[in-house]
């Protein structure tokens, strides 16, 4: 194809997206669109998969059967969300194995929030309430994104996600209304998860490199700073309601903006964690790669069994 033809196709392509048309797997698309989507969607899938680890940590020690079934269901949902997203990403021409390889080798990133440890039961509450809360704010606009398979996967994810946040808030509420020790535990979890949750919504707009292009492709409908403000405005009253204090001395309602002003985010910490120096980066990858390697003989055996069954069937038919 000549350069002019490509340019022509690109213009038509951008116009389709501007008209709110969806792009489907077999449609022509610019290489950059394909690559950007593979990167963002696989990163999203990896986050769901690695995201199971911090919570999986507490399944055996959930304080009641009610909490245990809920946490199990939530972690199972995360596995499901990872699978929806992996299969949607595969429609762009990358194989599942390549994506796993990228995750396991550290080439692909996942949400840095999962590199923090879950040291008490209250962390299950804080993750559901704050981390899933921030994730929902990120994900809802993606239900309308331009790439059809991604948009459809996000619709399923968002439908299922709201129970995650509610179960987390309920855990926090129960602890906050419990004994002084329980309330302290809830406050401590909020103190540790608040800032990482704000960071989860991404770098500030002035340093975010992909924003303009992603807005055009509807991979992003609102800027990181807008999403962060929305998250803060919605979460602060919820904390007040259950008597917990947001760990930010500069947090103050701004009458003219109709929003909360908030303190400086420690972006050095964010970049340290992104670069692999968070408290749990190594453990997470060790657990993930270990599970993949220990499962290899099972995958091989399942394939061998399937082939044997197929052969037997063919012999009987022949």
């Amino acid at each position: 194809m000549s350069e002019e033809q490509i340019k022509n196709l690109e213009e038509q392509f951008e116009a389709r997206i501007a008209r709110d048309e969806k792009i489907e797997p077999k449609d022509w698309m610019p290489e950059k669109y394909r690559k950007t989507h593979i990167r963002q969607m696989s990163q999203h899938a990896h986050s769901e998969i690695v995201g199971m680890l911090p919570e999986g940590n507490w399944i055996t020690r959930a304080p009641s059967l009610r909490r245990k079934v809920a946490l199990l269901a939530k972690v199972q949902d995360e596995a499901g969300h990872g699978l929806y997203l992996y299969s949607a990403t595969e429609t762009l021409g990358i194989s599942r194995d390549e994506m796993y390889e990228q995750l396991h080798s550290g080439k692909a990133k996942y949400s840095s929030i999962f590199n923090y440890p879950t040291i008490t039961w209250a962390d299950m509450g804080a993750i559901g309430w704050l981390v899933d809360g921030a994730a929902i704010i990120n994900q809802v606009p993606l239900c309308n994104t331009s790439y059809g398979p991604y948009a459809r996967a996000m619709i399923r994810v968002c439908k299922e996600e709201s129970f995650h946040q509610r179960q987390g808030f309920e855990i926090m509420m129960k602890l906050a209304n419990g004994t002084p020790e329980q309330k302290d535990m809830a406050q401590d979890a909020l103190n540790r998860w608040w800032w990482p949750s704000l960071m989860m919504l991404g770098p500030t707009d002035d340093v975010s490199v992909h924003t303009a292009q992603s807005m055009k492709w509807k991979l992003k409908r609102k800027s990181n700073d807008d999403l962060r403000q929305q998250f803060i405005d919605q979460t602060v009253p919820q904390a007040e309601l259950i008597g917990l204090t947001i760990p930010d001395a500069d947090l103050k309602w701004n009458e003219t903006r109709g929003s909360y002003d908030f303190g400086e985010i420690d972006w050095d910490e964010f970049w340290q964690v992104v670069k692999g120096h968070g408290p749990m980066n190594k453990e997470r990858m060790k657990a993930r790669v270990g599970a993949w390697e220990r499962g290899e003989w099972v995958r091989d055996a399942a394939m061998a069994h399937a082939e044997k069954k197929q052969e037997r069937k063919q012999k009987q038919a022949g």
Partner: protein
Amino acid sequence: MSTKNWPLWEIFVRSKNGLEHRHCGSLHAADADMALENARDVYTRRSEGVSIWVVESKNITASNPENNGELFEPAHDKVYRHPTFYDLPDEVKHM
């Protein structure tokens, strides 16, 4: 690395009797039986289905969007295939 990867399957779910099976996504499985079991866990955790079809992805033949012109445009100018193309006197209320 495994010697052979599990193939990809397309999953179709009937949400209730009376409705058609609808494509809802894909997954990897060693064979059709495992694809059915995995589909149950991945796509019907909240009673989304009463019946599942699985088809190995490589068995699906899809039309090419580049041929959409030849394939679908001829229908655009055949307005006479729609009831609104025909003139009826106002007296005819239901037809």
